[in-house]
């Protein structure tokens, strides 16, 4: 199944890889859900598939779980090829977005289902079910039917029902999507702690960037059936590869650069509508490119008194101020284009900037990043 010309897929399956996906494609009619996706997920990591709806993240999860088949490409779990293994014999379990609890069974019967299928002795099952329910703190609901539970409780049952089988990989399909914000935050922490304690590999599908940042060891950001970037939270946030990544995760100022000249070691000078900006060792190579985009996160901008000059310092005007407690968001205008800046409110009245006020913005060279597109 090796894809010629695809680096990475030529190497032998990594023994430490929990899941290895190579060259997966899946098409539904005229809709390309997955387009030649390759990915390695390490043993014991909390891995998130993040992206807008329709990006293929759920399809990828379902193919790993055996609930859907790829048109081409391969999946290996624990070094073992999965192409002919049906869902019920794969060493993975899934937590569904709709919970998918069996409505005619009690909570305990739901949780016991997987062990029953493995023909484990009834006494063992009872003990393990009790333990699993304790683990997700719903021991007292064992004899209830799913219809009598709240959304959060249902999700805990779904989690216990999957984890009791001690899967090699746990697949979670937007498991917190249907819950309200407060409960979601609580469960995020719980899921994270649980994963650390059990050491099971989690593959977590979500469209909520904050959720992915909080919980994951690594994140794969997807769009239109392809993976845009893989990395840990800091890497993806601090060093986005392209505009989509920079915009999907948090906010980002994008500045078109129309030319560049090399500066000293590892730096360059970019021609932008804001003037010449020095870029220090950041991002994609810019050599030979006519035009490219510079990115800088709003919180990296420095707000200085009007009239200050120097490297990467640009005069600007405040057009809007939004006070949100711990920080303030400033909508600025510099060189005829908008800029967004965040500043911590370190002291009371720290930023007495009114709309219309003039100031200088400093874009630190080390915080500027050249993007691939």
């Amino acid at each position, binding site marked *: 199944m090796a894809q010629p010309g695809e680096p990475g897929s030529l190497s032998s399956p990594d023994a430490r890889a929990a899941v290895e996906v190579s060259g997966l494609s899946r098409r539904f009619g005229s809709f390309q859900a997955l387009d030649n996706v390759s990915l390695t997920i390490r043993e014991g990591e909390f891995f998130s598939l993040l992206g807008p709806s329709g990006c293929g993240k759920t399809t990828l999860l379902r193919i790993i779980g*055996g*609930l*859907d*088949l*790829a*048109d*081409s490409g391969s999946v290996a779990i624990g070094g073992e090829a999965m*192409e002919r293994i*049906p*869902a*019920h014999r794969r060493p993975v379990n899934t937590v569904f977005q709709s919970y998918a609890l069996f409505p005619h069974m009690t909570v305990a019967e739901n949780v016991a289902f997987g062990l029953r299928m493995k023909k484990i002795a009834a006494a063992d099952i009872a003990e393990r079910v009790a333990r699993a329910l304790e683990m997700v703190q719903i021991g007292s609901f064992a004899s209830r039917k799913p219809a009598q539970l709240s959304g959060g409780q249902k999700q805990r049952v779904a989690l216990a029902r999957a984890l009791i089988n001690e899967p090699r990989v746990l697949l979670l399909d937007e498991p917190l999507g249907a819950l309200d914000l407060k409960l979601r935050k609580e469960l995020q922490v719980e899921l994270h702690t649980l994963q650390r304690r059990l050491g099971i590999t989690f593959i977590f599908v979500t469209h909520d960037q904050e959720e992915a940042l909080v919980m994951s060891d690594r994140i794969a950001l997807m769009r239109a059936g392809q993976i845009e970037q893989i990395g840990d939270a800091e890497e993806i946030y601090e060093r986005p590869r392209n505009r989509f990544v920079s915009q999907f995760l948090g906010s980002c100022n994008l500045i078109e650069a129309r030319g560049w000249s090399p500066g000293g070691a590892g730096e360059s000078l970019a021609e932008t509508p804001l003037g010449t900006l020095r870029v220090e060792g950041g991002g994609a190579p810019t050599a030979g490119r006519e035009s490219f985009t510079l990115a800088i996160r709003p919180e990296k901008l420095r707000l200085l008194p009007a009239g200050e000059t120097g490297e990467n310092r640009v005069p600007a005007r405040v057009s809007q101020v939004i006070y949100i407690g711990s920080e303030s968001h400033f909508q600025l205008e510099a060189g005829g284009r908008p800029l967004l800046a965040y500043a911590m409110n370190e002291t009371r009245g720290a930023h007495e900037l009114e709309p219309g006020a003039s100031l200088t913005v400093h874009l630190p060279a080390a915080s500027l990043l050249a993007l691939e597109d």
Partner: protein
Amino acid sequence: MARRAAAEVRFGEQLTPRSELLRSALVSGPAIAWVSLFLLIPLVAVVGMSFLTRGSYGQVGLPATFENYRRLAGYGLLGYDPLYPQIILRSLLLAAGTTLVCLLAAFPLAYFIVRLPGRFKNAALTLVVIPFWTNLLIRTYAWQILLGPESLLARLASALGLAPAGQPLYPSTLAVYLGMLCAYLPFMVMPLYSSFEKLDWSIAEAAMDLGAGGPQVLRHAILPQVAPGMAAGVILVFIPAVGQFVIPDLLGGAKTVMLGNAIQQQFGASRDWPFGSAISFVGMALVMLGLLLYARSAARRGEEGLL
């Protein structure tokens, strides 16, 4: 890769076309085989039989002709005789008339039930459903008692000078209609009721606010909304009414012979299977035609069919 592209996963199972075919054969197969063997093949046999010829002792054989259909069209051995065209027309008229009367009666009934408060609504609906589940034969022969020579209705009719005293009001066309209405009214009420239940009354109220009168509100604000229920009711009444055999048999006389009675006669007393088959085929064709019209009108409204 093409090999795996052909397989599919549904409801969590990986199925190749072959394994899916095997599953179908195992799961759907027995029922399909059963209905095919005991109904579809016999229906094909009916069509085939309708082209054969009856011998003098009721035996069946060649030659294969259109004779039975010519006879049905009125061109028998003894010249033109409108008996069978009349029977077909009469059956269609009876079915259409029954449908119309049911619609007229069911409309206010369904409207009344849907506007009742919750608890009474269920009770009123159950009261419509109970006759529906009660044996049709019993409900039909009961009309013989209700229309009998000394019944209340017969005495009323003679007192009004509508009928001679001491005579039953059946067999008659009126009796057949009464029996048909009684039998098919629930079929019309139920789909109409579910349409009324989904009806958005605010549209009717808006129409009244805009100064529309009763008939206009009905025509422009209510009828379009309950049209699907009406269409379903029409099909549920018309189709079984075309082939109805028991009601004309018990409440009608020689003047009300319908398709169903003619079929029964050919397979019973006359023992002319080929001709009986020809009548059956016409009955089937009429029903299919009705269904086709319904399916097309449902498709035009962009709905799923009745089934």
